[in-house]
């Protein structure tokens, strides 16, 4: 099986988890009451980032040109960084260490973001190897 299919599938899974996870599996705190908590916006933003990662994963699977695959991988790595920055720096989560968004959502997004970065880095190396083999 071609490498970009495997990588593409992994990015689609990670992207969907980032998009839907903060609203389901590792949900942020409940904002049904009068107040809208900070973490609610984390979930909203991650929904967009996650979808972007999933779409880029599909694009990576379709692409045949190594240079384009490397470019897509770089874009994915940047999205992975943003995935981590949103709950940690850009928006942040609820203050209390025991709030669900702080104890569960934030570490889950950090792990998924790191996974996207690592996968993208491996992809860049593999696609570059393929590129240099074609050029030889």
């Amino acid at each position, binding site marked *: 099986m071609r490498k970009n299919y495997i990588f593409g599938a992994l990015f689609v899974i990670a992207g969907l988890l980032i998009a839907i996870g903060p609203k389901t599996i590792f949900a942020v705190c409940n904002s049904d009451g009068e*107040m809208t908590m900070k973490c609610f916006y984390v979930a909203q933003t991650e929904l967009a980032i996650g979808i972007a990662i999933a779409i880029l994963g599909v694009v990576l699977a379709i692409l045949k040109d190594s240079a384009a695959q490397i470019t897509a991988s770089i874009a994915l790595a940047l999205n992975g960084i943003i995935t981590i920055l949103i709950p940690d720096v850009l928006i942040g989560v*609820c*203050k*209390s260490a*025991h*709030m669900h968004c702080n104890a569960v959502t934030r*570490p889950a997004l*950090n792990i998924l973001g790191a996974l996207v970065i690592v996968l993208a880095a491996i992809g860049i190396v593999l696609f570059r190897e393929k590129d240099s083999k074609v050029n030889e």
Partner: protein
Amino acid sequence: MSNKPLTIWQLAVANIKRKPLRTAGLIIIVALVAFVLFAGGILSVSLKNGLESMKERLGADLLVVPVGYDEGVEGIIVKGEPAYFYFDKSVETELEKVEGVKSVSSQFYLTSLNQDCCSVPVQFIGFDPETDFSIQPWISEVYSKDIKDGELIIGSDITADENNRLKFFGEEYTVAAKLEETGTGLDQAVYANMNTLVHLFGAAKEKGLTFIDTIDPESSVSSVLVRLEDGYDLDEVTHNIRASSDGLQVIKTKSMVTGIADDLDGLVSVIYVFAALFLVVVLIMLVIVFSVTANERKKEFATLRALGASGKKLARLVITEALLICGIGGSAGTIVSAVIVLSFSTYIGDRLGLPYLQPGIAGVFGIALLALAVSLGLGPLGSAYTAGRLNRREVYLTMREGE
């Protein structure tokens, strides 16, 4: 061009690459072992640390609370579940007179509202600096000055704002110090002297906390901590206290710790038994896999022997392959386990509902090394039988076997 000699290492790497599916399967199995060992190690050490920390932190022999609130006080100490209950302050004076009581100190509990966004209710614990023997020894480790009126000492899980201030019931308070982590519910508490607590109480009343309408903070307390005179028996003093006054629930802190220790022992035993069983099953599985694989590779081994490799070298080849697989699997499993268990430590502690204090970097590193060493050890152990057989067998017999 010079020909480099083919080393055992190169041959082993080539062999495990040649069967990617089998290699991946074995790596995943070993990774699971390392995962379970690391996670189990961290869990059991954290639970033991938590219990030790709680034992040290309690500081009193007996805790006296209003009848029916023993679970409330346990919730505060163990799980960090905020609670409030009150009885008359005169109880403190009465308890001082009881035979066998050396010293007493009262505490006043209050809980915050979900007042500002993104916070959970906080447990306030007010204490009398003149008589306190339970909280101040811990405060003195991080703050040497006297705690002034309006100042707060916060547990390790409470976060102050950038100006070191916290807002409760619409008023701001200065955070004087943050206590070290204990792994108990007390990490989620805010401590202050009685004057500050009375002020907080007033502010809470103004904000419409109706449950405290009938309480006068000047003449009420939530609990009285009791220290025993040397030579007095815990049961005897408990009996004396019960006889002295009605409506009091006496909690022996030792029993509370023992109860938690019993729960903890059960949990830790389950972790150890599961890890041990898993280890044995995987070891048996590896012995079988390596043995079956060696049977499939008879021709390959016979060719290597015909080319001059000794039986010892073949045994070393099989052991190196096993070590490589277990090394990769062990490292991957330990890393994944560390990422998950350490990242979700707060959630794990909350779910267990027991004191949970994660070990420091050195402790975590030690457990990781142990998990890695055990998974690595599975390699030689799992392949020893096959390696021994290869070492003994003759070339001709190996070639002809199965024909």
